[in-house]
């Protein structure tokens, strides 16, 4: 997919446009607004959450990435060069049951390797999986900025582990919202 991000069309009275001009003015922006830049991934591999620290979520199952923005080396996603704009990011972090009653799990959105937002914080159960997360927007430069997700296993009771069972996995979804 190589459609450019939508340009506001300027129709000039008296001009003699070619059909290709109408494709640029009408088809291209509407195509972008219909088939927006999207990315979805989940984590299906065993992963350890370090106690008391943010741990990068190493998503390994890429569900869709039509603009090939995912970097499997850094576990981050970069929008296409023509895709500068505001994006909505949804993160879910999951963890196996905690060892004590004072553990919490937090999902954190990172931009260019630095923490930007906390999505939500959830008190972890000792008898079942803990899942937390939320959604937030951020503005990205196409071809430059990188987005990643972290899990903060807030405890002194030892490391935690990601849940990889289908339906309980850590996930990351990104969609373009606007210029």
């Amino acid at each position, binding site marked *: 997919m190589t459609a450019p991000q939508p340009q506001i069309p300027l129709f000039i009275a008296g001009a003699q446009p070619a059909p290709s001009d109408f494709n640029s003015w009408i088809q291209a922006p509407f195509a972008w607004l219909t088939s927006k830049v999207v990315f979805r991934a989940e984590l299906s591999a065993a992963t350890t959450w370090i106690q008391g620290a943010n741990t990068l979520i190493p998503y390994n199952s890429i569900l869709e990435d039509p603009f090939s923005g995912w970097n499997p080396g850094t576990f981050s996603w970069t929008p296409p060069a023509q895709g500068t704009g505001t994006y*909505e990011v949804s993160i879910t972090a999951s963890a196996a049951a905690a060892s004590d009653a004072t553990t919490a799990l937090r999902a954190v959105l990172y931009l260019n390797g630095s923490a930007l937002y906390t999505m939500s914080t959830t008190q972890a159960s000792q008898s079942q999986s803990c899942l937390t997360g939320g959604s937030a927007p951020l503005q990205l430069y196409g071809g430059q900025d990188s987005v990643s997700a972290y899990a903060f296993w807030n405890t002194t009771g030892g490391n935690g582990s990601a849940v990889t069972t289908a339906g309980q996995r850590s996930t990351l979804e990104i*969609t373009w919202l606007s210029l």
Partner: protein
Amino acid sequence: MPLPPWPTVPNPSTWAAGPILVPSLRADVTNAVSFFANRPSFLGWCTSGPAVPTGGSGSLVTLDTEAYDTWQGHDPLGAQPGWWYCRAPGWYLAEGYVPWSYNTATTVSFTTSLATGTSGGSPAITTGEIHPTNDTRTPGPMAADLVKLTNAWAPGTTLPASGVDYIALYARQNSGGNLNLVTVATQYPRLSLRWACALSGTAGLAVPSNPAWPVSPAYITSAGYLNPAIRDTIRYLAYPPVFRAFYNAGTANLGSQTFPAGTKLALDTVSVDTYSAWSAANNYWVVPAGCGGVYCCIAQVHVASQSSAGSLAAGFSVNGGTTIWGKSARSPSNSSGFAVSTVKRLRLNAGDTVALMGSQSNGSALGINNGTRLVCAWESS
């Protein structure tokens, strides 16, 4: 914000045989692209760490800092720095997050809510997550919802003294005293929102195919190209499949289960269903024909107070398959109730069914409260 003349919520004309006039193209295509590519949206934070008194309906969170405010609906230095004024009528997807500087083991319930109102009147507060917490770990409930804003403050005009709809973020706690919000930069309380759908429009359209402009010797006709490629495309993008329903009766219970087993929850009140796709008999929403794509889905489960500790989870069931859980949290015993919420982008095909799933492990059945809701909003093909 786009430069004037500011775009309006698109409502395209029907093309008829005759010349293709530039004013018509500007009115429909330029306006629509400008609006959809620069839709009203906002992200603001509270960085001051205010003290929030206990109880009541909660406190309005003042948003002293903006990341962006594309249509200038918020003024951090104005009379209402906690409000975002509606600049274009429609349904808005909104999210809020409020963390607290609270690290003791005494149980306190924390609630994040979204509120809507009309200036000059009182707000209507809709609950988001309610987290009874005793884990000493800086609680941070969130809120996510689809909200309706009808009365707009027209761009280019002076803010009216009253009668303009707004959205705001509320925070509540029941410690018995004052508690402060967090002032850590990566954990600031925040509110974000963006325009998602018009209040009315044409239902039943499929995702636009966006064909190329006809090349001679083909003819450009209103029926063959102009209406499908321009009018109907704009109509779809302005009024896509969008759904919100909640549970209001207050009579149903959610039984105790062992996670990840869950229960499909009934929803008896529909707020919006642009394509009339909700099946009340089956308690699921059906993706309309021709409307497959990526949907923003919000699931919230809200239960009554608990006499013992337990966990609560919220998720989605697509086509009755393995539940897609998005939130699972523990709560100590409480008198406030418990609510958890999740936001996910799901790729759904036409005909897929989406149901709200809940699971709780309290040991006994819990009443289901009216913060229980499901939202599905088309975002992309």
